């Protein structure tokens, strides 16, 4: 009977996404027919009431992307968590993975619905663009639908088979389903990325006179920015998934009624934050790669992005990333309050905070900004007499690398807080770890300062050495730490659940900031095409052809984030009504008795 109920539920939940996919297939087939042959001339643009076509398509695309990022990021985490649970025989990780997948299940329908809304919006508001893209990419659109179908089936098998295939080889088979789910999800993403990136960077042989039927498919598919976007989105989805899970855990923690619930959601929040910040650390490197490829494709586009009308966007981005680093570290420092033995590290947090604050200030210092004559006069020249020195890439790269090192140090202190290593060479190992930190910081600083004395083309290369120094330190120190902490004694159980509420609000701020940042970067990626639907191939001749200023973009982004969080909250609430949350069995340790002195 339970199997039959489960099957019915599966079919019910499968039906909606599949219906949406079916609608997309039908529309695609309609568009594949040459409407012109019937003597009908399709309009170029449609109208959307009140907010206009641009805002309408923007909101539809952004909401679809938010949900898509979530349903792509969470399975990556689930499958890793399940594997950890299997290898370490820790059931709490398995339960955590299952709870994440339960959230995923409900969000999947929303992703499909917003995907359908986006397709309808494109067809009705931008029929010329849609027709063009459909003609260039028709084969991949069919494949997309097929993969989407397989992804849906795999997801439902993965979730509903969780308790059925939980032992022995069957468990490994179940984990294989999770891996397969990730493969389908990644395939869906890279196919859709090709459509978006083609609009940014069409192949050189495609001109305004090139008929879409003459565009070579693979050349259009694997265009110049396709792979950098794939990598960047892949990592960003992990960050996003971790952040939303963290926010979910924070929400549940704040509403928890028992110590057991609080302990479970505290632990889940920590894991979500750990995933998000860990992936965030490598995201800037993917961003550099993407930026470099944009410059390679078209220098004018690159210059528009970094120094043109979008130059101020990067100041806002620096502000947001500053918030992420500060909130992420703050959460860890507060979390040390529930770890016996962490007291010995707490005096150092003020120095870590100082490095982060100074780093954020340097990173947010503008340099190459478009300025009016009045603004130049007020500043006393093109650059500020003192702060202008901090605006160059040498200073910014140095700042961000030191911020990454600092955040890594926070994680390391957190990790070691309640452990007492038992190996004989612990002092030597710790000295090596400390030396690695000092050396990499010195390398970062050296190249940061030296960069002021060499030509720009040489200076750009220095960022590679800085990144390598930081990455090497992270890898070596972690590897060393894993070995050093084997068989370590515990200084006491982590008191999961005994976190002040303010730490949970930090998790919520992290999620809001990640989501907003994703919207901002989406605006940057799309906006650098300026008045082109397909860059220098298909011109935007609509009334909304001009790319809006950042203020307007911020209002749309905030509206999208609010709608997304509202819908996610509703979905989670509905999910909570349907099924009881799976409590992982993380032990909640009572607080120590207050010292009673004489």
């Amino acid at each position, binding site marked *: 009977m339970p199997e039959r109920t489960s099957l019915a539920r599966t079919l019910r939940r499968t039906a909606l996404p599949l219906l949406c996919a079916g609608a997309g297939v039908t529309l695609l087939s309609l568009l594949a027919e040459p409407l012109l042959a019937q003597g009908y001339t399709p309009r170029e643009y449609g109208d959307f009431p009140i907010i206009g076509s641009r805002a309408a398509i923007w909101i539809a695309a952004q909401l679809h992307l938010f949900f898509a990022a979530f349903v792509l990021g969470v399975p990556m985490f689930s499958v890793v968590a399940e594997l950890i649970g299997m290898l370490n025989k820790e059931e709490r990780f398995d339960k955590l993975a299952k709870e994440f997948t339960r959230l995923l299940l409900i969000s999947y329908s929303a992703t499909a619905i917003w995907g359908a809304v986006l397709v309808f919006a494109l067809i009705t508001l931008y029929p010329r663009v849609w027709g063009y893209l459909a003609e260039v990419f028709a084969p991949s659109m069919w494949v997309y639908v097929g993969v989407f179908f397989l992804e849906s089936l795999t997801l439902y098998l993965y979730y509903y088979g969780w308790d059925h295939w939980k032992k022995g080889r069957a468990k490994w088979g179940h984990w294989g389903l999770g891996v397969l789910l990730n493969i389908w999800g990644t395939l869906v993403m890279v196919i859709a990325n090709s459509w978006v990136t083609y609009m940014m960077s069409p192949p*050189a042989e495609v001109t305004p006179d090139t008929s879409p039927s003459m565009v070579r498919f693979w050349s259009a598919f694997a265009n110049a920015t396709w792979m950098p976007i794939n990598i960047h989105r892949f990592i960003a989805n992990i960050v996003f998934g971790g952040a939303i899970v963290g926010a979910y855990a924070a929400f549940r923690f704040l509403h928890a009624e028992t110590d057991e619930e609080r302990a479970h959601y505290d632990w889940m929040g920590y894991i979500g934050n750990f995933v998000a910040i860990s992936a965030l650390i490598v995201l800037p490197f993917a961003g550099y790669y993407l930026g470099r490829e944009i410059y390679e494709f078209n220098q004018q586009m690159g210059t528009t992005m970094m120094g043109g009308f979008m130059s*101020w966007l990067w100041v806002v981005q620096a502000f*947001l990333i500053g918030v992420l680093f500060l909130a992420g570290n703050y959460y860890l420092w507060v979390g040390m309050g529930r770890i016996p033995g962490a007291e010995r590290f707490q005096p150092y947090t003020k120095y870590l905070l100082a490095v982060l604050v100074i780093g954020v200030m340097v990173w947010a210092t503008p340099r190459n900004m478009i300025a009016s004559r009045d603004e130049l006069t007020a500043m006393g020249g093109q650059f500020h007499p003192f702060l202008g020195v901090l605006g160059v890439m040498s200073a910014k790269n140095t700042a961000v690398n030191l911020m990454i090192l600092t955040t890594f140090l926070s994680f390391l202190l957190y990790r070691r807080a309640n452990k007492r290593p038992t190996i004989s060479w612990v002092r030597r190992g710790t000295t090596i770890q400390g030396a690695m930190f000092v050396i990499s910081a010195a390398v970062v600083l050296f190249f940061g300062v030296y960069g002021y004395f060499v030509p720009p083309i040489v200076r750009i290369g220095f960022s590679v050495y800085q990144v390598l120094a930081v990455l090497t330190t992270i890898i070596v120190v972690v590897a060393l730490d894993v070995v050093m902490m084997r068989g370590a004694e515990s200084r006491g159980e982590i008191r999961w659940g005994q976190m002040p509420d303010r730490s949970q*609000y930090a998790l919520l701020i992290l999620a809001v900031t990640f989501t907003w940042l994703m919207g901002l970067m989406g605006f940057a990626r799309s906006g650098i095409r300026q008045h082109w639907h397909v860059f220098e191939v298909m011109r*935007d001749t609509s009334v909304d052809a001009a790319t809006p200023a950042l203020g307007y973009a911020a209002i749309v982004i905030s509206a999208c984030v609010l709608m997304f969080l509202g819908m996610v909250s509703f979905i989670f609430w509905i999910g909570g009504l349907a099924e009881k949350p799976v409590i992982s069995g993380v032990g909640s340790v009572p607080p120590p008795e207050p010292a009673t002195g004489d």
Partner: protein
Amino acid sequence: MTNLKILGVVLGTLALYTWVANAIPQLESVVPEDLSFSADVTEEELVAAGQELFNGGGGCITCHGLVTRAPNLLTDHEGQGTIGQRCATRVPGADCKTYIYESLTSPTAYVLEGFDPMVFQARVFSGAQIWALVAFLQDQGGVVTVTGADVASAAEADAAAPVGGPLTASLDPLEVMRVNLCFGCHILDGEGIEIGPPFDGMGSRIDADRIRRSILDPGAEAAEGFEELLGQMPPTLVDMLSARQLELLVQFLAGQGG
């Protein structure tokens, strides 16, 4: 109460970011206006149109508003005056109008020492737009010599050769290279400037396939000794050649054995 607190934190965070983004200077990317001038266009009309392009859709101030990427054209540069004052003295034998026009249509032709070649892509602008820009720049301290005749002939040229198509029908490799301004960066038998790899002896250094690839996708692979210039050659050159011209050029350059 907890829900209200959560809502407050979310709304407060969103409000803060929205405020920050609205507190900074608001720059909109303007669409370059299509210009259709007749032969009796006035100087004032040209200058006004050029000014709008320069400050807006042309994207010029992205670099020329900064001293780091490009010389400022509207203010003095190293004591030589504004662009209208210094344009006539930049290249011997080239008057102000010719100098600015060629600088716009062939950004690698006259690169000022200490700066990178300009990234402006003239091919996406009409002849009238280019001449309006020239008139505006001449007007910065100089005398505007652009006339309606220049605009009219540009319009005829636009009509004859659509943007993005071959610039010449010639099958003489040297002529094709001259028209496409290859000698703005490459040198052959003393003709041209040696910024990029010289055409002299090219066939002894690389084969025809590599030459073809370098024209089709110049950003893909750097020439030995010119790594720092990777990405500087316009990727649009191939759009300006017919298939036969491309093959002629490839075979011609492959035959330069030194």
